[in-house]
């Protein structure tokens, strides 16, 4: 670090220590702003992951007739994998389907204990290549194959989901930018407040020949340091909230919130990076015209 940078850091650290209440106000306000931003990022990330899982999951389910048997199922999976537009296939026998269903039911899985016979059929799951269309012709062609009882397509609603996600993605980015601008505004206001509180000291500095950069730099450093502290606190707050919410909440089908949502491991780093950027921008905006030598005295 350069000599000027070290001195600015030292002065910023010192002036932060002199106004503890001001720091408390600044850091807590920034923490709230960053926590909102972090919650939003977590939500977006989880929605994105969920959508991605749905879109890359099976898009066609080929239900086998009860008489077809596992061997025919395996053959069919191989046969279907050779069709154009098919990315992958997987044979799922009725036992595997029941285990999966049981897992999805979670605590309610005991409802299945009373079943004497497994009612689920054998099936083959198809994942289509991106852009491939699971139209009625393909479904009809598959249905004519030996051992096939039914073809269930998830494509129509997946298409709608894809379109909704594309539109929602743009909206999410716009909302994210707005939230970030909100954080910048909070950072700039905390700097403005600090300048106001120390106005007498700054006026004196101007009178003895302090340059604009000499006065501004510690405020930028201070804004960045406050941002980093607030990012750490916001990450801790979100992690705690996430764990409190994730543990007991059960969703329909026996799913748990913690199984559907995940806390992004890189969130503290992302929040710190955003806080540094917001601190620099907010610092510039907050100091603005207020620290010009001729206008201060």
């Amino acid at each position, binding site marked *: 670090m350069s000599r000027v940078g070290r001195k600015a850091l030292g002065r910023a650290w010192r002036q932060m220590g002199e106004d503890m209440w001001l720091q408390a106000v600044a850091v807590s306000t920034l923490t709230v702003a960053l926590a909102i931003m972090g919650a939003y990022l977590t939500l977006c990330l989880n929605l994105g992951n969920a959508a991605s899982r749905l879109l890359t999951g099976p898009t066609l389910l080929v239900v086998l007739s009860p008489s077809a048997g596992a061997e025919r199922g395996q053959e069919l999976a191989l046969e279907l994998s050779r069709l154009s537009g098919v990315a992958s296939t997987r044979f799922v026998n009725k036992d595997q389907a029941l285990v999966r269903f049981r897992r999805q039911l979670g605590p309610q899985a005991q409802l299945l204990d009373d079943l004497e016979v497994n009612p689920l059929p054998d099936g083959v799951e198809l994942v289509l290549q991106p852009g491939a269309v699971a139209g009625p012709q393909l479904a009809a062609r598959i249905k004519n194959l030996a051992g096939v009882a039914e073809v269930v397509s998830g494509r129509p609603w997946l298409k709608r989901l894809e379109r909704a996600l594309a539109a929602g993605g743009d909206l999410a980015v716009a909302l994210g930018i707005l939230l970030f601008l909100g954080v910048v505004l909070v950072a700039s206001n905390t700097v403005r407040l600090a300048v106001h509180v120390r106005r007498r000291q700054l006026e004196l500095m101007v009178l*003895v020949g302090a340059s604009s950069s000499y006065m501004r730099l510690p405020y930028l450093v201070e804004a960045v340091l406050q941002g980093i502290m607030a990012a750490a606190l916001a990450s801790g707050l979100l992690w705690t909230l996430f764990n409190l919410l994730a543990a007991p909440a059960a969703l329909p089908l026996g799913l748990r919130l913690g199984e559907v949502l995940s806390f992004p491991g890189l969130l503290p780093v992302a929040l710190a990076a955003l806080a540094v950027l917001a601190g620099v921008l907010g610092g510039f905006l907050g100091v603005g015209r207020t620290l010009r030598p001729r206008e201060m*005295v």
Partner: protein
Amino acid sequence: MIRLEQVTKLYPHRKEPALKQVSLKIPPGQFVYLTGPSGAGKTTLLRLLYGAELPSHGRVVVGGADLSRLAPGKLPLLRRRLGLVFQDFRLLPGRSVFENVALSLEVAGVARRTIERRVGEVLEQVKLGDMANAPADTLSGGEQQRVALARALAPGPDLILADEPTGNLDPDNALAMMRLLVGDYVGGATVLVATHDPTLLSLVRGARLVHLERGRLEEVG
């Protein structure tokens, strides 16, 4: 050192100009008293000299720099050549005497070791050598004004501008303050002292006297 040419200063909220066509030349090293009643324009004239205001008309030249044409970035460099003393001391509360005096050197980027040496010297000159670590706001008025003077003297200024420097001091402290301003301590700097106290005028032999009355300047002696 100082040149004012037909300087007029108008304020938006006042009908009468604060300064009316003031012209003044002060060569380097001269000691000048600027007298006049309250509201005569003394403070305005000083503010023009340290660049806190710009003239409405005319030119203000300090140390060869025309303040109307001076780039904003150059103003701090000019102010580092000035020593300013105010009636209300303008010290940093909660900071020590040393820190207050060191401020004028720190902003100029002077090395720490040099600051320590120089601050020690000026504090000895103003008889506050043993009070360097005392909080400035716990000192008496006279002592606080000496701290302010030490801060002004620390960078070795070419020009000292003092606005009613004895205004808040008792007669003994006022006398001590003026002795410091005319002694060897100022190192040959030009000194301009604005005051409305006539008792101070006899303290400096051979000092030049200029008088301001309702914004107009007249040479007295």
